[in-house]
């Protein structure tokens, strides 16, 4: 057992150089989402969503699969970072906090993987 206080053991060591990483990634993903979400919203408003053939064609041709994959990934990333902060700020239970943080991470990874898988499946299908 050390007699040094927790503060004493870290003073003078400098920072871990990772303090602003989360904050910065939230901003980077936000900036990336500005054009991506405008593109997605405009596309969704113009698409005849009930028509499978037209939607499938839209999803799988040109550069759209790439934009869709990027949009889904960056959205899930930005959302995961944001939801993490909300949980950290408002949930204080000893068990609830880590469990909820873990569940939020699982949720975002599953949603992102599902979206990417769907776009690739559509774009690379052979029929």
């Amino acid at each position, binding site marked *: 057992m050390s007699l040094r206080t927790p503060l004493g053991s870290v003073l003078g060591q400098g920072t871990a150089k990772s303090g602003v990483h989360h904050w910065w990634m939230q901003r980077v993903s936000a900036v990336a989402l500005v054009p991506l979400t405008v593109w997605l919203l405009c596309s969704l408003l113009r698409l005849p969503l009930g028509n499978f053939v037209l939607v499938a064609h839209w999803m799988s041709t040109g550069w759209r699969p790439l934009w869709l994959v990027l949009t889904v990934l960056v959205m899930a990333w930005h*959302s995961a970072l944001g939801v993490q902060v909300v949980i950290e700020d408002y949930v204080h239970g000893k068990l609830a906090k880590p469990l909820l943080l873990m569940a939020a991470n699982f949720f975002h990874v599953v949603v992102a993987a599902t979206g990417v898988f769907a776009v690739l499946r559509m774009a690379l299908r052979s029929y």
Partner: protein
Amino acid sequence: MNVRPTSPYLNYRFAYTMLLSFSHRIAGVAMAIGLLALSGWLFAAASGPGPYAALIALYSGWLFRLVLCAWLLAFLFHFANGIRHLLWDAGKGLEKSQARSSALVVVIWTVLAFALCLWVLL
């Protein structure tokens, strides 16, 4: 050791810019759930015409339409207010009066853009 200092988030005098601050988080969390609908839509389309028709039938119900509208509203607001946040991060518009007028711009944008989207959809 059990009683830790917490952020004094209940002690502020009310200002209407706070409403935008709360709403930004609420809209963000709502859209996190909305990711499920987006991925579900992509997944159904990749699964073929049958599953896609079933999903469109589900999304066409009046309750789901209402939820979709709420997500659209949340997005339009979060989008504009997010840009407001980015400008703050760049050190611009941090004065109280500027924060109030930018809040007004965000609210007006949200209402007008939402109306425009509904007009396009209907």
